[in-house]
C-alpha cells in the first residue's frame, strides 16, 4: 500500500501520510537508538506512529493541538465502510460486488426514514474520504527538520506546484529554441481540448492543495498555466494542464413551447400553467379575439378591481404589441390578489409562446416574463418577532 501511495502522489507528496514519511525516512540519517527498528520495512509504519504518539517534544505539540485523524483511524474507517457496504448489500438482497454509492443512499433512506427538512442532517453513509476533511500530515520529523524544501515559504504545495510548472515552461522553451535552431520548428494548430472546459476556481485549487491561497496567488498560477498553453506541449504537459481544467456544462436555453391545440369550432388556442407564491393558475389563450379576459368565469375588471393587478395582466400582451388580439379564459386558486395576478401573467406568457416567433420568445425570457418568481414568504425565526423584525430593544 505504501508503494502505490508513493507512485500516485509523486508531485503532491504531502497528501497521504505514508508516502512522504517512508521516502524521507529512508533518506534521513537515523539519530536515535530506536531508529534501528526502522530498518524493518513492515511494521515501520506502526513504529513510526508509535513514536509520534509517545514522543511529545515541543516541536510536535503544535501538530497534536489540532485534531488529526491518524492514518490508522482513517484506514480502520475505510475497512469498516467496505464491510458495512457488503452487509448492507446483503440486507437489501443485492449483489455486494456491484453495490454503488447511489444504491447505498437509497438503502439508507429506506432503512432510516427521516422527516428532517435539512437534507444535510439526515443519516448518510459515505466513503470516509468524503466525510473526514483532508488534513496535512506533520510536515517535519521528530528532529524538527521539515520534509519539504519549500516548507519555510508557508505555502509549500503551492510554491512547489509553481516551481514545477515553471520548470516545465523552461523545458518547453528550451526545446522550442533547439527546434528553431535546427529549423524543425513548425507552428501547430491550437488544440480543441480546451473548448467546453474552464480553469479550476480558487476554491477548487485550495481543496486540491489543502492550503489557503490568496487571490493574487491564484491569479499568478492561472497566468502561468495560460503561458504554458501558448507553447507547444508534449503529451505529459497536456495531461498536466488537463488536470487543472474542469468541464462546463452548457445550460440549454430552450423554452418548452406548448403545442397549439384546436377546439371544435376550429379556433386555435393554447393552454399553460403558472404559479406565484402559493397561487396556481391555468390560462387558455385563443389566437383570434378581441382582448376579453375571463378569470374564474368573472370579467377581469370585476375580479381585479385594483389597477396594479390589471397592469400585471397587460404586461405580456403589451410587450408583444398584441393588446386587443387575443381572448383569454383562465382559472386561478390560492394565494392573494397580487400572487394570483402574477400567476396568471406567467401562465399567459407561457401560452403566448406558441403563437409567437422564437426571437420574441427569447425577448420574453430576457424580460423575465417566462421565469417563475422564486420569492417565497420568509420563515419567522425564534427570538425575533417576524422574519426580520426584532423585538423592541429595551435598554434596561
Amino acid at each position, binding site marked *: 500500500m505504501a508503494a502505490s501511495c508513493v507512485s500516485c502522489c509523486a508531485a503532491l507528496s504531502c497528501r497521504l501520510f505514508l508516502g512522504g514519511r517512508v521516502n524521507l525516512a529512508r533518506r534521513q540519517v537515523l539519530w536515535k537508538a530506536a531508529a534501528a527498528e526502522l530498518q524493518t520495512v513492515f511494521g515501520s509504519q506502526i513504529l513510526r506512529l508509535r513514536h509520534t504518539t509517545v514522543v511529545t517534544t515541543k516541536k510536535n505539540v503544535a501538530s497534536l493541538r489540532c485534531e488529526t485523524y491518524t492514518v490508522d483511524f482513517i484506514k480502520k474507517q475505510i475497512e469498516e465502510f467496505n464491510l458495512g457496504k457488503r452487509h448492507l448489500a446483503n440486507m437489501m438482497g443485492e449483489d455486494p460486488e456491484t453495490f454503488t454509492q447511489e444504491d447505498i443512499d437509497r438503502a439508507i433512506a429506506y432503512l432510516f426514514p427521516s422527516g428532517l427538512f435539512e437534507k444535510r442532517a439526515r443519516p448518510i453513509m459515505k466513503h470516509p474520504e468524503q466525510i473526514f476533511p483532508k488534513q496535512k500530515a506533520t510536515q517535519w520529523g521528530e528532529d524538527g527538520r521539515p520534509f519539504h524544501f519549500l516548507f519555510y515559504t508557508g505555502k509549500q504545495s503551492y510554491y512547489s506546484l509553481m516551481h514545477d510548472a515553471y520548470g516545465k515552461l523552461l523545458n518547453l522553451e528550451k526545446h522550442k529554441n533547439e527546434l528553431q535552431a535546427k529549423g524543425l520548428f513548425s507552428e501547430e494548430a491550437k488544440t480543441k481540448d480546451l473548448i467546453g472546459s474552464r480553469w479550476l476556481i480558487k476554491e477548487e485549487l485550495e481543496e486540491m492543495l489543502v492550503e489557503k491561497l490568496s487571490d493574487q496567488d491564484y491569479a499568478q498560477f492561472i497566468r502561468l498555466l495560460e503561458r504554458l498553453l501558448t507553447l507547444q506541449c508534449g503529451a505529459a504537459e497536456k495531461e498536466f494542464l488537463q488536470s487543472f481544467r474542469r468541464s462546463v456544462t452548457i445550460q440549454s436555453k430552450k423554452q418548452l413551447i406548448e403545442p397549439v391545440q384546436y377546439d371544435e369550432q376550429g379556433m386555435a388556442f393554447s393552454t399553460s400553467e403558472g404559479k406565484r407564491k402559493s397561487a396556481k393558475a391555468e390560462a387558455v389563450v385563443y389566437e383570434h379575439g378581441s*382582448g376579453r379576459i375571463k378569470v374564474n368565469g*368573472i*370579467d377581469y*375588471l*370585476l375580479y381585479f378591481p385594483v*389597477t396594479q393587478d*390589471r397592469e400585471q395582466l397587460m404586461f405580456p400582451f403589451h410587450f408583444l404589441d398584441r*393588446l*386587443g388580439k387575443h381572448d383569454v379564459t383562465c382559472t386561478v386558486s390560492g394565494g392573494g390578489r397580487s400572487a394570483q395576478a402574477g400567476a396568471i401573467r406567467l401562465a399567459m406568457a407561457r401560452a403566448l409562446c406558441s403563437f409567437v416567433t422564437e426571437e420574441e420568445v427569447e425577448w420574453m425570457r430576457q424580460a423575465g416574463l417566462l421565469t417563475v418568481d422564486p420569492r417565497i414568504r420568509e420563515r419567522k425565526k425564534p427570538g425575533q418577532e417576524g422574519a426580520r423584525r426584532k423585538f423592541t430593544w429595551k435598554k434596561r
Partner: protein
Amino acid sequence: MLKGMRRLISKVHKLDPGHVLHMGTQAPQSLAAHLDSQVSGQSPRAISRTSENDPAKHEEQHEGQHYSLPLQDMKTIFPHGLPPRFVMQMKTFNEACLMVRKPALELLHHLKNTNFDHPAVRYVLYGEKGTGKTLSLCHIIHFCAKQDWLILHIPDGHLWVKNCQDLLQSTYNKQRFDQPLEASVWLKNFKTANERFLSQIKIQEKYVWNKRESVEKGSLLGEVVEQGITRVRNATDAVGIVLKELKRQSSLGIFRLLVAVDGVNALWGRTTLKREDKSPIAPEELALIYNLRKMVKNDWHGGAIVLTLSQTGSLFKPRRACLPQELLGKEGFDALDPFIPILVSNYNPKEFESCIQYYLENSWLQHEKAHTEEGKKELLFLSNANPGQLERLCAYL
C-alpha cells in the same frame, strides 16, 4: 351658444384646413347644421362633441357624443344628485358635458311616448359599477327639466339609511323615526330645483304641526317647504306632506311629475341605524323611507318613475351584485314589479374613442403616449371600457 359655435368652428378649421367656410353670410344654426353634416361626412374620426344641447332632440346619430349643459342650469336643476367626481370635473373643465348614450336615448324615447293617463311606468337602470347609471339619470332629469316637469330627485337613497346622527321619534306616528337633518337638506335642494312650482301648487288638506302652528287648506306648497326648512323638527313630516300632495295632484294633470331615485335598493335593504337599546331599525320604521316607498308605487298617473340601483353605497350586499334581483331582494323586487329594466353597460368602441377625444380636447391627458394608438389600446385594456375606471385612470395622466 355663439361662443361654443366659434370654438367648434375653430376646431373644424384645424381638422380640415383645405375646407372653405362661408362665415359671414349664413345664419348660425344652419351653419352649425352644415358643419355637422360636412365634418361628420368627411373626417373618419368620431367627433366627441355635438352642438345639439337640447336633450329632447337627441337621436341615435348623436350617440357617443358629448353635449354641454349651461352652468347656470346646472345650479338650478342639480343642486344635489351629481356624482362627486363629475362635479370636480365640471369645476376643472369649467363646463358640464354629458355623453349621449344608448340607455338614456331609450329612456328618452319611452318618456316622450308616455301616456299620462296610464299609471306611472317604472324604469330601473342597472349595471356594473362605474358604467354611468347616475349620469344617465342626470341626462333624463335635464330633459324633464327642459320639458317643464316637476322633478322629485332623491340623490342617494343610501344616505337616508346610514350614518344618521339624530333620530327622533316621529310626532305623527309613534312607531316611526324622523331624520331632521337629512329631511331639511333635501327640502332645501328641492326648493332650489323647483322654485316656480312651489308658488303654483296649492295643498288640499289642512295639516297641523303642533298646538300653535298649522297649515291651512289652499295655501301654497312653498309654505310647507319653508316650514320644513325653518323648523327642523318637522322637516320629515314636511317631506311626507310634499310627497303626498304631489302624488295626489299630479293625477289632476296640472303638471308632470318625475320621481328620480338613485340607489333605490336602499329602500328595501337593511339599515345600520340602531335604537337606544341597540336593536336594529328596519327601513319601514323610518318615516322618510316609508313615504318614499309610497311614492315609488305606481298607483298614480301623470308622470314617470326612473330608478337606479347602486351597489356602491349599499349595505350588506356583496361587491359583485349588480342585478335587480340581487340588489333589491325579494321584497323590493315584488314591490317594484312590474318595471322596465334598462341595462347600462361599458363603453362601446365608438363611445370610448369619443371619451378619449373629449379628454384630449380639454388637455386633460398630458402623457405623450395618450395620442397614439398604443396608448389608447393600453387605456382600453386597463379600464376594459368602463367609464368610471377610465376616468380614474385618466386622472393620473
